[in-house]
């Protein structure tokens, strides 16, 4: 019951955000310099054609009316047509989303496997060489431009050593081995930054947990240090880290843009870059909207997880 109440309140909070988001995304196309009808007409500047386009897309209507029409269509899953390959934007996005989600999940798994143990290590042995090295890794992971890391990894492991394919994507159903090999480098590139963020938060949450009274009690009971750190401190320290992880998952899409470009993975990011290059504005607009919706969904999941794993909120 308490959970349903919490969920209802949380969902109600997203409504104004979603509404504002729709205004922002709609406003994007009005940033285009000049008349959008002229931009759409392109090379062919025949006034009749421009007038026809203006009427067909409703550019001759008052702005609030245009927004209303756009919102109604968007709510029905119509985000317009791609100019480049005359497919509906939603169809195009759905086709690419799966590939990007595979990359995102692989990166997240890698980030969790690297980031959390390093954070625990750094907190359990402060001042040690291992702690310093872990902090250095985290700082580097946050600071390195990922697209450059991608280029360097391709240079080292694909061009010189020939261990991994340098680019492209193989569907799992076609060849699971090639699918996995193709994901290793891009997932590593995307995962290192998040691993850095997770490591830093795990460390500070662990340091806080290790300084608390129940840890002193656990130690006073004579429990082994390993058990104190892994069982008592980590369980409590993980609560904020899990929330952060879900939010970082939403941000993964941002990083995926350039990573997919470097590795020629035909996902979400590649679609955005192509949309930008070919001035396919409806696709760019749709991508902004969908990436924001995914982020809102991820932070909703984060809040629900926080509620579920935090006993203080449940009782």
């Amino acid at each position: 019951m308490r959970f349903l109440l919490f969920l209802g309140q949380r969902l109600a909070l997203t409504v104004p955000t979603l509404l504002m988001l729709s205004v922002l995304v709609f406003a994007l196309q009005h940033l285009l310099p000049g008349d959008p009808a002229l931009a759409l007409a392109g090379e062919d500047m025949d006034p009749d054609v421009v007038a026809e386009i203006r009427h067909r897309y409703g550019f001759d209507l008052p702005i609030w009316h245009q927004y209303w029409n756009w919102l109604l269509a968007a709510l029905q899953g119509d985000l317009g047509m791609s100019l480049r390959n005359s497919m509906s934007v939603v169809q195009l996005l759905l086709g690419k989303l799966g590939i990007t989600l595979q990359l995102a999940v692989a990166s997240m798994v890698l980030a969790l496997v690297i980031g959390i143990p390093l954070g625990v290590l750094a907190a359990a042995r402060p001042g040690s060489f291992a702690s310093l090295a872990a902090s250095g890794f985290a700082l580097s992971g946050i600071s390195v431009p990922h697209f450059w890391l991608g280029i360097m990894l391709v240079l080292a492991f694909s061009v010189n050593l020939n261990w991994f394919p340098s680019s492209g994507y193989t569907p799992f159903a076609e060849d699971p081995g090639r699918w996995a090999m193709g994901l290793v480098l891009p997932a590593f590139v995307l995962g290192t930054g998040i691993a850095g963020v997770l490591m830093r938060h795990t460390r500070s949450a662990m340091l806080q947990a290790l300084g608390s009274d129940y840890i002193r009690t656990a130690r006073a009971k004579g429990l082994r240090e390993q058990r104190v750190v892994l069982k008592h401190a980590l369980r409590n320290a993980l609560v904020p880290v899990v929330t952060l992880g879900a939010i970082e998952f939403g941000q993964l899409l941002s990083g995926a843009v350039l990573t997919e470009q470097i590795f020629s993975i035909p996902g979400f990011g590649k679609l955005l870059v192509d949309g930008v290059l070919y001035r396919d504005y409806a696709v760019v607009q749709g991508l902004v909207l969908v990436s924001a919706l995914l982020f809102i969904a991820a932070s909703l999941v984060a809040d629900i997880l926080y509620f579920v794993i935090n006993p203080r909120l449940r009782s």
Partner: protein
Amino acid sequence: MASAALAGTLQPAADGRLRRVLRRLRRQPASLVAGGIILAFIIIALAAPWVAPQDPLASSFLQVRKPPSAAHWLGTDEVGRDVFSRLIWGARTSMLAGLIPVLVALSISLPLGLLSGYGGGWIDMVLMRVVDAMLAIPFLIIAIALAAFLGPDIWNAMLAIGIAALPIFVRLARAAAMSVRAEDYVEATRSIGSSPLRIAVRHILPNMLPPLLVQTSVMAASAIIAEASLSFLGLGQQPPAPSWGSMLNAAQRHMAAAPWMAIAPGCAIFLLVISLNLFGDGLRDALDPKRG
């Protein structure tokens, strides 16, 4: 006059605080080294015309994609330009990319944050919903989309990055305004009859800056990476003008034959960004009264 003097004595002495922060910063060798590296990059960027050994735009078809040598310390690029000279000139773009978006974000977010955090009411509510919506769009995606809609140009890219950084700054500025508003000396100034506008501009605004300062350093780091990313995609610096991102764009096409083209600009971005992040960490610790 008397009220101003009284308010002045009630306000925490800015000089003393600055000295304390500097003293704490001095105790962190890593942050000092980082600060030194950032300073060096600034000097190199300013002195580019005198430091660069060659013209960054001079191409030579006899010198296409030559590996590092005595004549070209970091090799040459796909049209025979000196990579080292381009790297030095490119520092200008990156330093500007670290500065301008942050200035854009600060100059918009300070008044908005003040209005929202100090004023409150329905403006605060509407503004926060806009900020929530903007925060939902991933940073680089909104920067790319804005740059695409504004048109490919380095100044548009910087504006786009500044707008993308805006929601975080407005949030921070608002929180800062709210916490300063609750301070005793603001209450005291109000009690001696200062006008709300005077309190806001004279007392709250200057004290909002310290928490925003840390974010400035971290955001400069993100902005530099974002500019490099946009230039890499062809949305930022336009050829033939050099920028680290556009150099990487060209390098990607010649990766196997001329890896030096990619190594130098990437290392430069990495070094500058890691220094800014380290300096930001140090600054945060130095400003945090709970530490040191």
